[in-house]
């Protein structure tokens, strides 16, 4: 075993941290308090190549490996970028663009990947429905073939980037009686008649990522917008799990490093009973627990990334372990950080409060903790 990063990877991570601290982090608080998507920051991520890092250069990417891509996400969190923007990035790059890249035709790749990699277009993915969350196969959105077109009808729910997206990868049933095998994936552009997004949902955390319903009412799209084969959609959605359990988890882990730095500074500066609270055992223990979580979680994440780099098929058990650990065990350090700040930690103006709210999504989004346990217990 070897846990080394290459010098290039280390340098790249540091570069991303410097960039984010300078150009993104100063804008975070304002947007977070208002619950606004920071389009300018998002486009800057595209300008510097983060949005398309792992795509080939021919498509506007940088040919980065998965571990490097994960480090970029970790770096954003570590710099202090909020969970909303990193979620918007994750949904855009890994759930939308990568699905088109991995399963699309050359024409689809050429049409969409450069625009998505640069951030000129924003992408989203529509899978979850009001009545189909963990149980994906029960989705009711349909795509009916009529000549050389598909007609989509149905609703998608909790779609990250929904209100701001230029293009969506949408999953819909094409088979009548088939469950998973009847799900297909389509590319639907904003402005297509019959396609609309609902209002931004006001959320507890990750507030700078806009989330909404996607509505399809007799939405006609050319058959060339089908990704891959009919019935292949479920496997495509499952393949995004590789990214979800690595690059999408990484900003959360990096974010805990940021929170730890904030806690350390506060513990040194905050005096009670005549001395910095850092000198109290209970405070040191909280700092230790945050540190332990970070170190435990990041290795799980790197393992998924490294295996993907080796071209190995996803180990669903290891992926579920990573998601479950980061989601469930991450709540306590986020809580500890907020409590360490006392009354200040309960106020919006402190980053630990934001982190606490953002962290609550981890056991819910991208497959709940209960679903992870179900997967693990089945595979044991």
């Amino acid at each position: 075993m070897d846990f080394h990063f290459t010098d290039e990877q280390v340098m790249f991570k540091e570069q991303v941290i410097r960039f984010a601290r300078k150009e993104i982090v100063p804008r975070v608080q304002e947007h977070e308090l208002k619950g606004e998507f920071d389009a300018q920051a998002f486009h800057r991520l595209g300008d510097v190549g983060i949005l398309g890092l792992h795509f080939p250069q021919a498509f506007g990417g940088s040919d980065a490996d998965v571990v490097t891509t994960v480090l970029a996400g970790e770096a954003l969190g570590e710099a202090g970028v909020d969970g909303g923007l990193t979620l918007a990035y994750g949904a855009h790059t890994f759930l939308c663009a990568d699905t088109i890249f991995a399963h699309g035709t050359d024409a689809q790749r050429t049409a969409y990947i450069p625009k998505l990699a640069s951030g000129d277009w924003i992408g989203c993915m529509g899978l979850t429905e009001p009545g189909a969350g963990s149980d994906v196969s029960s989705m009711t959105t349909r795509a009916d073939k009529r000549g050389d077109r598909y007609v989509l009808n149905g609703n998608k729910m909790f779609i990250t980037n929904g209100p701001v997206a230029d293009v969506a990868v949408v999953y819909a049933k094409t088979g009548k009686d088939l469950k998973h095998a009847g799900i297909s994936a389509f590319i639907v552009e904003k402005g297509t008649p019959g396609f609309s997004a609902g209002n931004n949902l006001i959320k507890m955390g990750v507030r700078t990522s806009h989330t909404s319903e996607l509505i399809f009412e007799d939405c006609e799209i050319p058959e060339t917008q089908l990704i891959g084969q009919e019935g292949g959609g479920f496997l495509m959605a499952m393949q995004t799990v590789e990214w979800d359990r690595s690059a999408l988890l990484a900003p959360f882990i990096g974010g805990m490093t940021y929170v730890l730095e904030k806690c350390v500074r506060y513990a040194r500066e905050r005096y009670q009973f005549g001395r910095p609270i850092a000198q109290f055992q209970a405070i040191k223990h909280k700092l230790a627990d945050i540190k332990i979580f970070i170190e435990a979680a990041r290795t799980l994440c790197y393992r998924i990334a490294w295996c993907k780099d080796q071209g190995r098929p996803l180990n669903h058990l290891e992926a579920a372990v990573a998601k479950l650990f980061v989601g469930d065990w991450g709540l306590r350090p986020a809580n500890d950080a907020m409590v360490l700040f006392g009354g200040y930690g309960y106020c919006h103006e402190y980053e630990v409060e934001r982190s606490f709210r953002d962290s609550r999504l981890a056991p819910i989004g991208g497959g709940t903790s209960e679903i992870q346990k179900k997967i693990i217990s089945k595979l044991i």
Partner: protein
Amino acid sequence: MNFDIGEEEKNLCERIKGLFTVDGGADLIHLENDQPEVVRRATLRWAASLAEAGYLAPGVLNGRNSVSLVVMQESLAALAPSLFLSVEVSTRIFGRLVAVYGTSEQKDGILSNLTSGRIIGTTALSEEGMNIENPPLATTGVSSAEGFRVSGSKSHVVNGPIADWIAAAGTIDGETGTSFFLIEKSRKGLVTGNRLATLGYTGAAISPVHFEGCPVPSHHVIRPEDGSDALKMVRLWEDQVLTAATLGLMRRSFDVAVTYAKTHRSGGKPIIAYQEVGFKLAEMLTLFQTAQLLAYRAAWMSESGDRETDALAHCAKVFCAEAAEKIASESLQILGGNGYILGNPAEAGYRDAKYLQIAGTSTEISRMKIGDAVLAY
């Protein structure tokens, strides 16, 4: 990066497993015997087999931890927890102390016998009534014509009743630096207390050790230039061994729970089919895999000499020890009444787990050290 376990490590683990499948490890029961001589003979017999399999020597001479070492330690700790503790204290703690800080003469006299399983060693650090974190130690050596006369008492010494050599940590002539007195079993003034009855690790021989003006020749004293550094290293080695012990414990407890959950039926189906049990196992495996990777990375960091080595070793010790207790507890819960009967890995693991949070650097002290590290104190 590389997350694969090498073929060499896998083969070594298989060889170790093979040792216990020959006779089912039946004579491990002798370790539970009250008579120190019986325990000693059984320990030496196993140590010789382990040496032959290539287990005892790695990491002793260079004093370095490594992922390969932890992988094979995990394997033995899962098969024979008490034996593991005994041989590790002998080699990877006492042996490393001699190898890294000892003189050539000391090394020549001890190391080859130790790593071939012909003798047993131990280190004696802990003392009653004082925190090992707060030296100077009460055990002292006073200069005399033949070298030093050592007086003091050590508590909870693993291998105390069966060791051929004891390295007792103490001070010399009132100086503050820590030295280690290498004391042979037969040395006059060495009094080994009765073997302690313990909650867990009942096959390990643990006792207090007293030194009553025990004469130790000068050439049997390890006097590192920086005594506090040596003491720190010994504690790090101790924590590394205990961390590896947690991995073995987790593996053993998890495996027995899975086997039981798949074979024990209730309501017409195996109990693993119930979410209450299946989800428990999922949480156990999540903790185990996370702990395993953290321990491996801590070992790798130690090997690479990273500046965060100490902090990560403490992170691994705390996380792994607490995960082990949780997994052991849930394992016992899954086995239900059957788990509550003495003599199965679930209940033994449950009893053993507490030791791993107490021994070495306790989880409380470890957290303080991690806190100090992140505060850069």
